[in-house]
């Protein structure tokens, strides 16, 4: 099974962004998807660094893809989406809009924010040139198994959300800006202080969600360590790890150790929680009653 690093979902300074991908070049992962997923206003801050990051990662032997935005509405965003394939790097579409601009029969990847829930959609995407699909994080293991089998028949690699705060919703409205009493068009980049998003708690002070500009994520970090064997058996070909600001290269190493049988799932889950005492884990979308559920042992709560 391969490891894919998904695009960073948060707003990082150009410096932090560039050093993250420099470090990632030495991480034991197979594929890296980079670029702006969440907000088109963030891209100009680090856009100039993308070619260097791509070159460094390619040199380190990684496959590299460039993501589209998750929600394309403005003219500027449509133009950005239309220019994605100009870099000569494979495109990962995270909004079907991006598909409309791809050259016919150009191979492409499909990210977790495109709704691939069934064989019909998978097969339609395959007929358009999709070579790899990262399934929506809310899919249960039963659906994953059916789609992994269908993917094998269609020649589409199937990837599953393995680690990181789960993208739950995307909106036309910016919640960071709204919280600061600003409109989206005059947001003054209210999201830049929160390198892993801003914790949203209930009135009983229970951690619940994460605010990230126009995006809402889970508070918990998805962690599919306990499902690895089932996923392998189902024919899932890659696990997606989603960037976080601290210790990410170590996290990649942990998942690699798990895949190679060097460490057990329980040990990895414990190590991840020991790295940061505020991290809560979940794997409920795959095997629980609710997305937030966690099948393993919790160090916090």
């Amino acid at each position, binding site marked *: 099974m391969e490891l894919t690093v998904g695009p960073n979902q948060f707003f990082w300074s150009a410096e932090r962004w560039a050093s993250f991908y420099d470090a990632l070049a030495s991480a034991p992962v197979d594929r890296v998807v980079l670029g702006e997923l969440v907000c088109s206003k963030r891209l100009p801050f680090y856009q100039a660094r993308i070619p260097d990051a791509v070159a460094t990662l390619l040199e380190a032997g990684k496959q590299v893809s460039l993501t589209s935005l998750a929600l*394309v*509405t403005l003219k500027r965003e449509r133009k950005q989406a239309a220019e994605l394939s100009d870099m000569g790097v494979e495109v990962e579409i995270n909004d079907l809009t991006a598909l*409309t601009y791809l050259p016919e029969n150009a191979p492409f990847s499909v990210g977790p924010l495109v709704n691939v829930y*069934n*064989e019909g*959609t998978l097969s339609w995407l395959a007929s358009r040139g999709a070579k790899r699909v990262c399934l929506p994080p809310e899919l249960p293991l039963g659906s994953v198994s059916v789609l992994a089998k269908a993917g094998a028949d269609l020649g589409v690699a199937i990837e599953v959300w393995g680690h990181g705060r789960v993208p739950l919703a995307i909106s036309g*409205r910016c919640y960071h800006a709204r919280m600061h009493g600003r*409109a989206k068009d005059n947001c003054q980049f209210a999201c830049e202080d929160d390198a892993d998003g801003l914790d949203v708690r209930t009135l009983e*002070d229970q951690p619940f969600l994460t605010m990230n500009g126009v995006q809402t994520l889970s508070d918990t970090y998805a962690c599919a360590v306990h499902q690895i064997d089932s996923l392998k058996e189902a024919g899932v070909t890659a696990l997606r790890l989603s960037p976080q600001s601290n210790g990410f290269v170590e996290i990649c190493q942990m998942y690699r150790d798990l895949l190679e049988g060097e460490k057990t799932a329980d040990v990895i889950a414990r190590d991840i929680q020991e790295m940061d005492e505020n991290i809560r884990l979940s794997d409920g979308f795959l095997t629980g009653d609710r997305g937030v559920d966690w099948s393993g042992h919790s160090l916090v709560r």
Partner: protein
Amino acid sequence: MVMEIVCPAGTPAALRAAVKAGAHTVYCGFADETNARNFPGLNFDRAEMREGIAFAHAQGSKVLIAINTFPRAGDEAIWHRAVSDAASSGADAVILADPGLLDYAARNHPELRRHLSVQAAAANADMINFYAETFGVKRVVLPRVLSVPEIAAINAETEVETEVFVFGGLCVMAEGRCSLSSYATGRSPNMNGVCSPASHVEYHDDDGVLDARLGGYTIHRVGKEDAAPYPTLCKGCFSAGDATGHLFEDPVSLNAEQLIPQLQKAGVTALKIEGRQRSRSYVAQVVRNFRAAVDALEAGQPMPEGMLARLSEGQAMTTGAYKKTWR
């Protein structure tokens, strides 16, 4: 041309009430997980659907069938059957969101008119034209994230008819792309046709303070004497940083009645009312008001004012994203 009023019907009785009240078009769903209002006691079995369509057609109204959840892997046949039954029942169109299902409908029932559900969240003209070219989609229900100028810009770039929500519940997240409900309850709009389901709601009374919980999470807290809003997840009260409040959206519902003239100028074909879960008397009243509004507009008369405020059940109203300040 007079703007088309598209009304919800959760039951055969509501369908008849909407038609009698002057609905140009009624939309409804089969009583299963194929539609995005899969609530207990709601929707139509096959015989009811055929009868409802015959009734509407006899009165000159159309019926659209929403099959707008995302088919479950391994069980697509349930959704395929829904499309085939819609065709054989004489439905005027199906409202679909899933590309695989659109592909199925276009191949197997090319004569059945296809509308793109709001659950597909097609938010720009390129996407809409793509659905038209690829699957022969004739109308798109626009997501509730667009302003009136943005809608006008879309209509300038597409031949596909546009339908917009003007009244009822309001999603603040891009529709069809939200897993908040399944994160907290395991039941989602995309997979199960439900959001923040009543089965997972609990009210907890603690010494005069009433907590409304969803999946164990406190979504609202009000004094015992105050009205407790339903704990819809994205309209809950939360805290983040130094702020506490309705961080995503206030518990409001959409009312864009005063924007109808602007929506018409923006090139919108049809006005959609949310609420298949609503009673037939509610539906009839909303329909009568909106029908009066579009008829007045067509006759060059001023819009009747503030006609629907009392139907909002004590909730505040908003014009949502249509006025750009919302963003």
